[in-house]
């Protein structure tokens, strides 16, 4: 059954790409900056956060802007991709009622759309990191690895959420709050070592921490992440992805009537 799902994804691979591209076009249609928003929004957010944290909260991390950036960019991708995937089956019900699209395609396309958005933005911003720390260019392959595993994790979780959302529409609202809380629980604006020891378990239980630490390592600190970390990342991503596929295939038929 799962093998079929993988086959479906493979069959639709170029179509997924096309659909994601069209989704992006649709998203930015009519806007002034178009795809450039993919860079502008994170930058603006980063600037505002930096100003508040540095001058109001008096956080003392050197190059705080880049510190935040290295975690914020991935985080923004995560939250928007999860939200879009979760709601995709419901919001795209028209397409599902008209064409015999494999259900898998819809949340994956949403995730891919956000991913393309993310990549575009991040690649434009990468040179800034390079300027500050030229050595990180050697870590580019690891950076790629991080991005890919991160994406797989997000896809899997998105699939799971999309199924849940089909049955419990309230998820949409809950998800919004959950993502905000999750943001605080992830060391995006702070370093894990700043957290009191009693509470550090929260950080370590947070799966996003894996990825964010990896991003931090390759972009900010310019050091190779621990091999354990990389191994856990990829295993964990695959587990989540396969679980997502499994849950979706189990519930596909019921979903078609629920949306």
């Amino acid at each position, binding site marked *: 059954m799962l093998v079929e799902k993988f086959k479906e994804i493979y069959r639709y691979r170029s179509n997924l790409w*096309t659909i994601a591209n069209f989704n992006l076009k649709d998203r930015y249609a009519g806007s002034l900056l178009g795809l450039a928003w993919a860079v502008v929004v994170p930058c603006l957010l980063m600037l505002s956060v930096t100003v508040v944290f540095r001058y109001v909260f008096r956080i003392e991390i050197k190059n705080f802007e880049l510190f935040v950036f290295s975690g914020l960019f991935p985080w923004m991708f995560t939250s928007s991709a999860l939200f879009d995937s979760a709601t995709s089956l419901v919001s795209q019900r028209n397409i599902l009622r008209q*064409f*015999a699209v494999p259900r898998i395609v819809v949340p994956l396309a949403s995730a891919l759309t956000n991913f393309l958005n993310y990549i575009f933005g991040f690649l434009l911003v990468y040179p800034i990191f390079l300027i500050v720390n030229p050595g990180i260019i050697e870590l580019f392959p690891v950076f790629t690895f991080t991005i890919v595993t991160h994406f797989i994790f997000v896809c899997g979780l998105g699939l799971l959420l999309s199924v849940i959302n089909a049955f419990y529409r309230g998820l949409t609202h809950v998800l919004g709050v959950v993502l905000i809380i999750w943001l605080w629980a992830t060391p995006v604006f702070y370093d894990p070592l700043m957290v009191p020891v009693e509470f550090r378990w929260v950080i370590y239980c947070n799966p996003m921490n894996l990825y964010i630490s990896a991003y931090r390592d390759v972009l900010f600190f310019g050091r190779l992440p621990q091999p354990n970390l990389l191994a856990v990342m990829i295993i964990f991503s695959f587990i989540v992805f396969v679980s997502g596929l499994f849950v979706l295939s189990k519930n596909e038929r019921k979903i078609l009537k629920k949306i």
Partner: protein
Amino acid sequence: MIEIVKFEEVSQYFEVLLKKKVKSEKKKTWSLKDISFSLKKGEILGIVGDNGAGKTTLLRLICGILYPDKGKIKRLVDPIAVLELGAGFKEELTGRENIFLSASLLGLSKRKAERVYQSIVEFAELGEYIDAAVKTYSQGMFLRLAFSIAINIESELLLIDDVFSVGDAGFGQKCISKLYELKTKGIAIIVVSHDLSFLRNFCERVIFLKQGSIVSDGPADSVISAYISQLGVDPGFVISNKNGISIRFNKGRIFIDYQQKPLFSFEGAKSVFCFNQRWFSSIEAVWELIQVEDNLIYVKGIYAEIFLIESWKLRFSRHGEISWEVSFAGEALPFLSDQHLRFMFFRDFERFHTVGGSYSFGTDFYDRDYDILQRCISQGSIVLEQPKLKDRNFEFMFSEKLDNFAKIFNSDFIAKSRVLLVYGAQNDAGRLIKDIKVRISMTDKKIEHKNECLIHKDDLELRFDQGRVRFYYQGYELTKKLSFYTSLYFEQRWFDSHSGAVWQIKEHSDSLFVAVGRWLRLPLKQIWQVNIVSPTCFSIVVFLCPDEKIDFQTVQTNVMVSDKYSNWVAGKEQGAFPDFNPLTDSYWESVIKGCFDKIGVFTESGICPFLVELEIEEKIPGYEANIVNSDILHRARLLQYSNDNLQSLLPGKYLCFSGRVSVCKVKNHGL
């Protein structure tokens, strides 16, 4: 033939949340129940049913958009559907972009998408708007785009939901002709539509879906009639009888089924009349059931606009006969005219028999109900025959004491049915004198071919058939349609030998026969003596024997031949026939008239290489030979011997024709 889709006892339910004040209720509705059918490659299927019957759900299941809750679906092809307009399009994207998006969603490869893309754009005819965002499109434009995509992506199965209502007539025509084109290419198509005449013409097979179940699955004509017959809020009443006949009355229409097979096509049987120069039909009245018993339906219909009440009594009499009585009452009654009952039969009924003869309906359906085959003034019965099914012959009987008359013809090509109009007894002004009453029965009486006979000598063959003689030479039929017949014009009506008289063969041998015909409405008879003299010539003698004094206007003896004969000859003169007069309504033109000894027809082109010649052996005072060109409906030539002057005849025996007909082969232009 391969089955490309197969449904086995498929059922589908939906859970609908009914939000009420106190407690919300979750209701489980079965939208489809135990659906089983299969579709073959290239088959054209129509689906009819009321709204909510489950048609769109069925299409979705066929497509794979929904999975069945029960049962199995087997699918060998990837269908493409046009279901809801605008679904599947992203609003901000242009028409062009949406084409590619749709292609992607359907799983087409990029190469295939590019291949069909151009034809999609062309067919949609959106002009420059193909580059506008789809959110600016009107419903009609959505239809164009959606339909164009569906048609041009080469799929083996096309599903069309009821979307045609939004298209303009021009595009609608284009879509329909493209559908016909796809039909010839062998693409299977399933159409859901409320346009019943389109479905009849386009689909071979129709499924009637009612509240989630298949009520009927079969040939288009019968299923669509079954659907029409139960339209409306009240299902109508059914009475059935042991003999397998069932009547359904529904809002001013009657449907009769014999052994579960419907007899009437299209709208069933209804009554029609004319009031104040406007036609009304029983469908327009508001009907009420007065009495319903085991073998009686008594209904009354009120026409709101005019003060008229129509009552129908439908009864089962013995032996599976139905009687239908129609009467009128009310202030408007004296002003009604042309009341008749209109029956429409399936085109399976190929022949009909009256007292005057047996006729075939033929296969011509014009664009108006105009080709009147028979105008019967009859007592007795009309039997409609379905040669393929011997037990479904329909007999209409008219009461002996009433003067009903009937008209039979083929309908137009939209309904493609046989039409029978039965008029009640009328006075001179066309007003109904008495109630209309008919008796209908199914009969498996073997249709006897009464009183035909055949004589022949070598290559010449003559067939007598109820007041008409056909000539055959070397296998060719020389005559056409009415062939050899006689006509009498009396009191502004024509009385023909083939329709207005009953014939009997008095003498019959190999080369001669004598037939006597008794006219139904006139007190007279005719005696025909036909004798083959040689292998190319035979003689005919016609005597007219009135029983009472009759004032005729015209007496004629005619030989009708086909229009392939392009030239005529009369005595020493000859010429070509002019073109047929485009005016119809029996506008027959005389080409030449005079006291000729011989008149004939021939053709120069050699299609029918014979010359047919009528030679008058005994000249009768007052009679003249005549060559006539018929009207465009009959498309024939006439060799005639007639007397057009008023005659008053006392009882006796009068000669009206004595002559010979000979046939000879044309060698060259000359005779």
